[in-house]
């Protein structure tokens, strides 16, 4: 018991030890996800030496702190899942981070509640050229004509392709390029041919325990038909339209005919692809780096046979679901002008190194970088650059987009996993999403 008390006392002392800001330095806080990897990159002081999302963002901050002696950026890491719950909790309790990473799809809710600072004047003053933002990045960070965040990347919904299996299925050109379908009928024909020749399903994508993948595929297919899923004012969803029925029917047919490996969650879908158990995994830009590394391993089924393309254009319009990460400054995040200036200095620093971040697989938000030789020389990026202007997201005036994504994704999962009829899915999504939108507007 005595020992227990000693341990508790020691822990109390440790926990109560106050930490003071470093003397003479302006401290700003940076809230982000992307994980923690200080054991690997804590001492690496050059962003160019970081690897992966976590490695690059960690070394970016390290480099900033090392090269700006008057400022210290303190990173506060939140985890992915409950990130916005925690951010909201912090805002409510006035424990406000100076800078926070945000998905562009989530930014609108915070702008509407007047929690985020407009940045046009500041960007002009410190030399961040808004005109150089790519079309998608600009759309994602602009609300009512004002810029509210510094875009960090555009991420999109892609087809990661095992070209060795495609070749085996007779779906590759002579030089090994995958032949992508150009209509739903062509896709079904390809999938049947693929199954016949390889004995494997054409697709792997996360259908279980994950709603985002289902929603993003669905939204891509609707956007490619030029249909507007949401009303112009963002107050309602319109599911009773032919484009929606077509998209859902295609997804259901693919699943029911066995062209999607069944019951996989996110990690299992990626694992199936890496093990050569499916021709295409439908997932975002963030896995490019990882899949490229795998494709270089001699024992990998992907070895020398990996390609990535935007989600194949199956209808008239080139469109692919896209979102983006951005950095926002919050009202009350700094107590003085010095802190605000320090935050802007950090944003400028990040903007100038946006090319480093695109090594993760995410697409650059600067037109200059997107068109640069350096970016296009990165493996597989040439074909992805178009997404910076074909990327399609929910309109910015649709509130609580993460929740809407969840509601749509749940019903699309029912469509695939339990064979819920298309008409019932349309009715259910419309009812549930409209109810959520009404509630969000109150």
């Amino acid at each position, binding site marked *: 018991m005595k020992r*227990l008390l000693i*341990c*508790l006392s*020691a*822990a*109390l002392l*440790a*926990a*109560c030890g106050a*930490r003071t800001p470093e003397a003479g330095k302006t401290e700003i806080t940076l809230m982000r996800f*992307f*994980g*923690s*990897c*200080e*054991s*690997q990159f*804590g001492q690496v002081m050059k962003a160019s030496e970081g690897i*992966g*999302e*976590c490695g690059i963002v960690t070394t970016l901050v390290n480099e900033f702190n090392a090269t700006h002696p008057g400022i210290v950026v303190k990173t*506060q*890491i*939140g*985890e*992915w899942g*409950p990130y916005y*719950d*925690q951010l909201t*909790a*912090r805002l*409510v*309790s*006035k*424990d406000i981070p100076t800078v926070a990473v945000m998905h562009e799809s989530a930014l609108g809710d915070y702008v509407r509640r007047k929690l985020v600072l407009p940045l046009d004047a500041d960007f002009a003053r410190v030399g961040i050229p808004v005109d150089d933002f790519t079309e998608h990045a600009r759309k994602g960070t602009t609300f009512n004509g004002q810029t509210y965040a510094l875009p960090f990347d555009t991420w999109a919904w892609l087809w990661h392709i095992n070209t060795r299996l495609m070749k085996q299925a007779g779906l590759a050109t002579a030089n090994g390029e995958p032949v992508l379908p150009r209509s739903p009928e062509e896709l079904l024909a390809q999938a049947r041919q693929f199954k016949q020749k390889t004995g494997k399903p054409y697709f792997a994508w*996360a259908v279980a325990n*994950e709603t985002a993948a289902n929603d993003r595929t669905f939204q891509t297919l609707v956007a490619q038909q030029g249909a507007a899923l949401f009303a112009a004012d963002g107050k309602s969803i319109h599911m009773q339209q032919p484009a929606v029925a077509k998209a859902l029917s295609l997804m259901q047919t693919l699943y029911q005919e066995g062209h999607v490996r069944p019951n996989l*969650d*996110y*990690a299992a879908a*990626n*694992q199936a692809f*890496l*093990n050569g158990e499916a021709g295409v995994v439908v997932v975002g830009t*963030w*896995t490019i780096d*990882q899949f490229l590394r*795998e494709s270089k391993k001699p024992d*990998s089924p992907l070895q020398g046979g990996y390609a990535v393309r935007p989600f194949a254009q199956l209808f008239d319009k080139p469109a692919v679901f896209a979102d983006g990460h951005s950095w926002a400054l919050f009202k009350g995040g700094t107590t003085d002008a010095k802190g605000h200036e320090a935050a802007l200095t950090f944003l400028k620093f990040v903007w100038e190194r946006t090319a480093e971040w695109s090594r993760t697989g995410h697409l650059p938000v600067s037109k200059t970088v997107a068109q640069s030789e350096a970016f296009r020389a990165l493996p597989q990026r040439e074909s992805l650059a178009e997404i910076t202007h074909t990327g399609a997201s929910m309109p910015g005036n649709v509130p609580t987009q993460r929740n809407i994504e969840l509601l749509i994704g749940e019903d699309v999962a029912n469509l695939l996993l339990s064979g819920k009829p298309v008409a019932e899915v349309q009715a259910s999504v419309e009812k549930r999403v409209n109810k959520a939108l009404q509630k969000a507007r109150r």
Partner: protein
Amino acid sequence: MNPLLRRGWFDRFVMAALTLLALAWMAPLLWVLALSFKPNEFLLRHTDVFLAPPYTLANYLDILQTSQVFRWLGNSALVAGLQTVGVLVLSSLAGYGFARCEFPGRRWLFALVMFGLAVPAQSVFIPLHRLFSEWNLQNTIAGLALPGLAAPFGVYLMTQYFKAIPTELEEAAMLDNASRFKTFLTIILPLTLPAQATLGIFTFLACWNDYLWPLVIATQPDMYTLTRGLASTQTNFAQSEGLGFLMAQAVFAGVPALMLYLFFQRHLVTAVAGTGKS
């Protein structure tokens, strides 16, 4: 002769069924343990390998090299310790009051406390968070520990336990001029040790494993508890990478709680079996 063989066939069947169920229950835990010793790169493609090589300690080293992990460990120990002590004191006092003291509205008050058992903790999160924020208790040990002191289960358990203790013991003490508080403290309370151990373990484990409340009340890394801190180090979306690291985190966070359980196991079994009354 083997004692098991001396038993009847029904007993042997029950034993075999229980062993199978125990193995089924333990399989995921053993899987977690096995994966924690595998390289993350390897797990990208193979998560179905149980005991075959390769093995690595890198995942555990990565945890230990996370600079604040011992601070989080300290925070967890402190918060769980304070909460456990607080719940034991309050539940014992309240339980004794409800079991032994007559006062107006006792039954109604007890019913009101029991009503707390039916209210999910999550449903009071928003008002609780606002209240604690108003009091500037965000990112404090008090903010982390205080909400757990409201423990209707503890009050219920202790009330029932006190009721089961013969009143003659107290009457004898009072005949010897002991005050009610002295009777409670020196005669009755020591008899409730098994119940205290049970309540203590349950409270400690619940607090140690709590993730949701620390998620909203502790937003500075310095004030994270272990569950909250380790979760913040997860490296990528949906954990398709770094699976070994994730499993090592689960083992690391679970070991102190397991040790505590093993240490107090006897009391726990005694109290749950209801044989600690004598």
